């Protein structure tokens, strides 16, 4: 089995302002599990979209079973025998399991769906996937995330695909579900089907993978590594060592002391995270490092009261904050800049000023009428302090760059006078030049006495920005250390391997 099934060479894909793929090579052999590794933004998602026919590459060649092809559409890719299971599950909630599996390639005569046959084949597929408990007639919207994943897989199988691309299939699965997934994958590869497997978890790659291709900054940096024998340190080294370095502001010379502003103790939410405890002091930046799905964002949202904790307490300045209540958290002095800035924090059509004063409107109101001039002046003062560009606070927020939008959210909480600022992926969608400026701003805030919690999936960002780093894996804080004592490799080891591989010298 040395012949090549799929060979991609020199794939380039540009989007306006960004080169997502700058020359990617990938070759896949029949019956192998080929793992694709890379940090966030390395180009994995774009690559699989090219493979699935959803994006058309600007340059490069794709050889499929020896002949050059161009997948102009998702249908064309499927017709060639390539099926893709996307991370954002592409199912129709309102349709039944069977209907979803056979969507657009129904068993039908003259347009009429052959219901019995469809059901029978569906049952067989689900059994093969180890899930006879899912009924073909169930509405997909009523399934759990794991159930949906199974349906997606059944759909790929229903196409008789010879190459199945799986984008982080284990992210939504419980441990024994993953075992089941591996069993299915082994069954498929034994029959000659190739799998392109994307995951952040090295232990999974060691268990199921055959060969590894590593992507970094839109390029293939290593191809055809042995999944079982290549040392973790080498893989991590390949993935890191970014070409672009950011300027991080200097930390305070001495660690922050004084009474903690925010204290979290024993916080637990079933299925998301267990026994999370940490404290934030005035002037301190605490970083949470972890993968998507590790529970880091959930922890932040629970502290903020947007999710209700199953157990544990959150205190501000020594006083307990009522759990599960955002207003209570805000009154206590917390502010959250969420990951989905545009959807969860900003009024995109409104002006900068309106966004900045959104949480403090009562302050500018007399008998219910907003004193627009006072509000505008306050907003202008705030945006000037944040060095927002453009300066005019009457401009609509949607015209701002990602970094400046983030400043608007931060400005809102500063105006509110918040004591602890929770930042979830603060630099997502912020271009590289603007990041350093945002880092400096966050540091300035801390220096003025605000406590900051930063969540980021980019390890260098957490290490460079935070005073203290908590590493989150599988819903637990597996490690805590001053940022200066950690390096990227150690953290990546921790987040990818879980608590099992903490080496001696890492434990403080």
């Amino acid at each position, binding site marked *: 089995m040395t012949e090549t099934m799929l060979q991609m060479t020199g794939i380039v894909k540009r989007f306006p302002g960004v080169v997502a793929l700058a020359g990617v090579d990938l070759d896949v052999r029949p019956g192998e599990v080929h793992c694709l590794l890379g940090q966030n933004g390395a180009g994995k998602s774009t690559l699989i979209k090219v493979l699935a026919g959803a994006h058309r590459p600007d340059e490069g060649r794709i050889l499929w079973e020896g002949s050059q092809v161009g997948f102009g559409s998702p249908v064309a890719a499927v017709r060639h025998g390539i099926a*893709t299971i996307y991370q954002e599950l592409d199912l129709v909630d309102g349709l*039944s399991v069977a209907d979803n599996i056979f969507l657009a390639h129904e068993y039908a005569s003259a*347009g009429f769906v052959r219901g019995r046959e469809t059901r029978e084949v569906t049952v067989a597929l689900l059994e093969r996937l180890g899930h006879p*408990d899912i009924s073909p007639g*169930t509405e997909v*919207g009523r399934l759990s995330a794991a159930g949906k994943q*199974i349906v997606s897989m059944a759909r790929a199988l229903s196409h008789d695909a010879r190459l199945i691309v799986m984008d982080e299939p284990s992210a939504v699965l419980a441990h024994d579900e993953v075992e089941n997934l591996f069993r299915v994958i082994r069954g498929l590869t034994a029959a000659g089907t190739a799998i392109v497997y994307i995951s952040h978890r090295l232990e999974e790659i060691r268990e199921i993978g055959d060969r590894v291709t590593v992507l970094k900054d839109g390029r293939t940096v290593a191809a055809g590594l042995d999944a079982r024998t290549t040392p973790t340190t080498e893989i991590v080294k390949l993935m890191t060592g970014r070409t672009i370095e950011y300027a991080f502001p200097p930390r305070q010379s001495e660690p922050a002391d004084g009474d903690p502003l925010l204290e979290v103790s024993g916080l637990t939410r079933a299925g998301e995270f267990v026994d999370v405890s940490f404290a934030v002091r005035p002037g301190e930046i605490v970083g949470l490092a972890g993968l998507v799905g590790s529970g880091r964002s959930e922890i932040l949202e629970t502290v903020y009261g947007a999710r209700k904790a199953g157990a544990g307490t959150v205190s501000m300045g020594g006083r307990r904050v009522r759990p599960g209540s955002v207003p209570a958290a805000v009154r206590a002095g917390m502010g959250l800049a969420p990951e989905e800035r545009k959807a969860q924090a900003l009024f995109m059509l409104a002006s900068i000023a309106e966004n900045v004063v959104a949480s403090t409107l009562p302050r500018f109101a007399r008998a219910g009428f907003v004193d627009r001039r006072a509000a505008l002046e306050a907003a202008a003062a705030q945006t000037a302090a944040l060095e927002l560009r453009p300066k005019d606070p009457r401009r609509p927020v949607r015209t701002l760059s990602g970094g400046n939008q983030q400043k608007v959210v931060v400005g809102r909480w500063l105006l509110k006078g918040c004591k602890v600022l929770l930042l979830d992926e603060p630099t997502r969608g912020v271009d590289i030049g603007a990041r350093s400026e945002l880092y400096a701003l966050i540091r300035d805030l801390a220096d003025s006495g605000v406590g900051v919690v930063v969540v980021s999936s980019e390890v260098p960002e957490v290490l460079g920005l935070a005073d203290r780093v908590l590493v989150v894996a599988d819903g637990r804080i597996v490690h805590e250390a001053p940022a200066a004592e950690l390096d990227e490799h150690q953290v990546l080891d921790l987040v990818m391997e879980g608590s099992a591989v903490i080496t001696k010298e890492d434990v403080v």
Partner: protein
Amino acid sequence: MTATEPATAPDAPVLRRAARLGSLGEARNLGLIIVLVLLTVVGAITAPGLFLTWGNLLNLLTTASVIGVVTVGMTFVIIAGGIDLSVGAIIALASVWCTTLASQGYGIGGMIFAAMAVATIVGAVNGALIAYGRMVPFIVTLAMYVSARGLAEQISGRRSQIVSDPAFAQIAFNKVLGIPLLVVILAVVAVVGWVLLNRTTFGRRTFAVGGNAEAARLAGIDVRRHTLLVYVLSGVCCGIGAVMLTALTNTGASTHGMLYELDAIAAVIIGGTLLTGGRGSLVGSILGVLVFTTITNLFILNNLETPIQNIAKGAIIVAAVLLQRRGDRRNAVTH
């Protein structure tokens, strides 16, 4: 089953039963059926010897027939994630077109052809602008609502055009096995619509397009072509409705179909179809139409005044939706 985390929702028995009944979401129609039964009881008590008669039932169904046919098309459009505000205007235009002196010259065949052709073409224009012109359905059909009725007024000179061919008027008189032809037409359209929605690839794909257009595209459905077809289907239903209404009133007029878009959308939504698309039930839509028609019928049988009718109508709509929501919540899944 090896999973510790159950793949299916915990509260499944009701759903399984619904699934066994053959179609998803039909269980939610229970609320409407309860409302209909209540209305029937009220009718039997307040209008004894009038409401529960064969004659009144057929008359009620005849009254429901035109809006019922339009609602079938509207159900497809809304499930596909769209909206059609132009149905009433299409009916007006088609009725006027088929009753011009020129059309009437071709006799009943020519008149029916004219109505169907005009309505289908208008539906296709709607669909093409939405699917290929990438315009918002609300805007496209709102524009059509205005201009189609305008064209109807232009052609008719804002006058009622009386049907001179007795064969055409006969459509409203004919009976099939004692049942008025118009009611039979409604039944046929509803059954064909149900089969199309629940038993064919076209119907399944309609749900997919409305529920998750991106997923539908990735699965290989030609979403644009499908969107076009859904609006054509709505147009065809309007054409049938126009023929029925023209026969029923023995006239074509630019005032025909006034507010039908609201009646049809209300019936679809009351029937449990999501206004955002992707989920819905044709049986629910038809039940919605029947609830509305029965309410009006009850009021007229009891000779109630218009203001009282309007107050009660609003109250009953809210009650129906509340009942339906309770039924829904019982089936709901906590994620």
